């Protein structure tokens, strides 16, 4: 009993700071979006999923298309890529630029591909550049036509067994050669997440 009393006094300075930590008000903390600490939910595409899908697509493009010598570009110029429709077949509204923009950046860094900002589905990325292009056409300057278009689809598949819920997100992309209209490169990446109702995040 005496020993217990002695040791409990010794434990006090160790335990006291722990109590303070427990009393601290919860604070918002900034986490690295490229790190492994961002939140993961079963339902919905999280930052890690976008990074994962983009990494697979970019690696495949570099390895199976560019590095394999399949990229065909005009003499001495990089190939021109136009972004076509990326269909969202998931139950939630998503901005497909979270995937496409990463691919555009990665391709432009290879110095072998440039992306058009004046050709696009449902509106161009740069309105001023589009206006200038129209003006140049009136002056007889023929604008460059794209050599490739990028299109794709994001599909959601859900399942449930008892308390366990599962969501799969399938990312499909195709690079089409213009004017032939044939797929020059295709890739698919499926990300599956499982969790219970009580797990982190919102179902």
């Amino acid at each position, binding site marked *: 009993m005496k020993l217990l009393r002695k040791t409990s006094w010794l434990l006090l300075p160790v335990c006291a700071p722990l109590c303070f930590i427990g009393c601290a008000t919860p604070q918002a903390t900034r986490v690295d979006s490229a790190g492994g600490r961002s939140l993961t939910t079963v339902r919905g595409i999280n930052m890690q999923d976008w990074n994962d899908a*983009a990494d697979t697509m970019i690696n495949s493009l570099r*390895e199976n298309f560019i590095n394999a010598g399949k990229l065909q570009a005009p003499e001495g110029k990089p190939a021109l890529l136009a972004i076509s429709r990326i269909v969202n077949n998931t139950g939630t509204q998503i901005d497909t630029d979270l995937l496409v923009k990463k691919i555009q950046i990665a391709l432009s860094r*290879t110095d072998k591909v440039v992306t058009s900002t004046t050709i696009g589905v449902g509106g161009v990325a740069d309105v001023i550049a589009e206006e200038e292009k129209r003006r140049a056409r009136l002056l007889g300057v023929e604008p460059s036509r794209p050599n490739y278009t990028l299109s794709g689809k994001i599909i959601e598949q859900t399942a449930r067994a008892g308390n366990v819920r599962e969501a799969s997100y399938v990312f499909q992309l195709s690079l089409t050669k213009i004017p032939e209209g044939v797929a020059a490169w295709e890739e698919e990446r499926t990300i599956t997440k499982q969790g219970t109702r009580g797990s982190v995040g919102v179902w």
Partner: protein
Amino acid sequence: MRILPFFIIGVALVALAALPGCTTVNTVERAQPIAQRQMVDDKRIVTDSSLNRRVQIVGVNQSNGAGGLLKVQVEVLNTTRSLQHFNYKFEWFDESGTVIGTPTSAFLPRQLEGKESMFLTATAPTAIAKDFRLKLLQDLR
């Protein structure tokens, strides 16, 4: 002596509980592989010895494609008999050792079944990338 039966039951329960987590992978491959890998001498800096014990790097090899981009392949092995989660990230450097930023310079989650090996592959973001570094991080969730 009275404790012994309880001890045996306890050990049996722990063993039963551990069973679902111990699923290992069996593999088969050509005894004399035709493909010859161009292995790379690597330098390893281990700060998380626990992760290093569970997920080990078996070897690193590289190749160059027609497009002039360096391709790296790292074989990792789960040395344990249970499922292991980890994150990895490749970094690329140019000739002067300056890091080359990419839009996907992020830790990517992967999982390995017991005794399973996996190849982590990456192709250099640009032709000026001459060196690489692979970072392995334990699952943070």
